[in-house]
């Protein structure tokens, strides 16, 4: 039902894809599956932006990011919900506002349903979505290491750590066979994303200890 509702949104002019998140958990989406990790990262970005502006004492609840050929819009729903839509640039905002108002009660129902599965349905499905931690089948690698390293990296580069780590690990696994992979190489690549030299060195020390290098 929820996917149908999102599909109805797409039928309105200019809307390409939509998804509903609870915190950074994807509940339902009509985005292509390969966008899964990126949507989770985007949700973190939007949540962080909205949380920070709450400190100004104003009730902002929607962010639009205009790129060269598209617009990403995120609207906060209740305490934990977030809807993200991708539209064409010249979209009718009044139409979207109206659609959100109409759909809001249904979206809130899904958000409040604790039994709602983590991923209800994917519209442009080729393969089931794969969580980031499951994309790595490395020697000497584990979900715990991935999660720990992500949290550590997030202290230095913020929520971008999720996508940075995913990207670097993916490239690392794509380039090298299992027996040639070295954690030190992975670490060096992550260091390139920390601009400040002192912070990079601090991260190196902590990550080396964590990874037993």
């Amino acid at each position, binding site marked *: 039902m929820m996917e149908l509702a999102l599909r109805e949104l797409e039928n309105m002019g200019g809307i390409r894809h939509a998804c509903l998140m609870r915190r950074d958990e994807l509940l339902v989406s009509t985005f292509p599956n390969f966008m899964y990790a990126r949507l989770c*990262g985007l949700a973190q970005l939007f949540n962080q*932006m909205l949380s*920070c502006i709450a400190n100004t004492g104003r009730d*902002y*609840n929607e962010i639009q990011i*205009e*790129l*060269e*050929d598209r617009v990403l819009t995120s609207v906060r729903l209740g305490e934990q919900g977030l809807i993200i839509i991708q539209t064409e640039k010249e979209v009718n905002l009044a139409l979207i506002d109206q659609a959100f108002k109409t759909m809001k009660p249904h979206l809130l129902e899904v958000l409040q349903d604790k039994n709602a599965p983590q991923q209800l349905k994917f519209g442009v499905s080729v393969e089931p979505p794969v969580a980031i931690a499951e994309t790595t089948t490395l020697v000497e690698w584990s979900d715990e290491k991935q999660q720990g390293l992500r949290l550590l990296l997030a202290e230095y580069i913020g929520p*971008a750590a999720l996508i940075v780590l995913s990207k670097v690990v993916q490239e690392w696994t794509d380039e090298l066979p299992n027996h040639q992979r070295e954690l030190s190489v992975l670490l060096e690549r992550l260091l390139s994303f920390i601009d400040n030299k002192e912070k990079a060195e601090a991260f190196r020390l902590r990550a080396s200890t964590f990874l037993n290098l």
Partner: protein
Amino acid sequence: MKGATVLRKMIVDQVSGMSGVEGLVLTDRSGTLLGSTLRDQKMVEYLSFMAGILPMFEQVGFFDQQRVKHVMVRSPSGGPVMLFVTEYEVLGVLSSKEGNSQLLKRNIEKCLVECS
């Protein structure tokens, strides 16, 4: 070629004078504050934070290698906050609820093109 300081002053003067603009903040692309007409320090800090966080997400491919051109943060009760991203600087604008935000956006974009 206009000097950077002159250019910034032109932008700040022109945009500040537009109808519906309550105040603005100018930062470099890392979010370092270059100037502000806003008295609300929390809003200045927020706009600087927003300006600084965007390049990081561009860099790691969040947006398919596309550049962020504009950001609008909307509220059901107040005027929107807008960020205009240029090659080297970010202009943050706090606008009033009464104005037409789309018209204001177009006018500011036109001003940024003319001043560059």
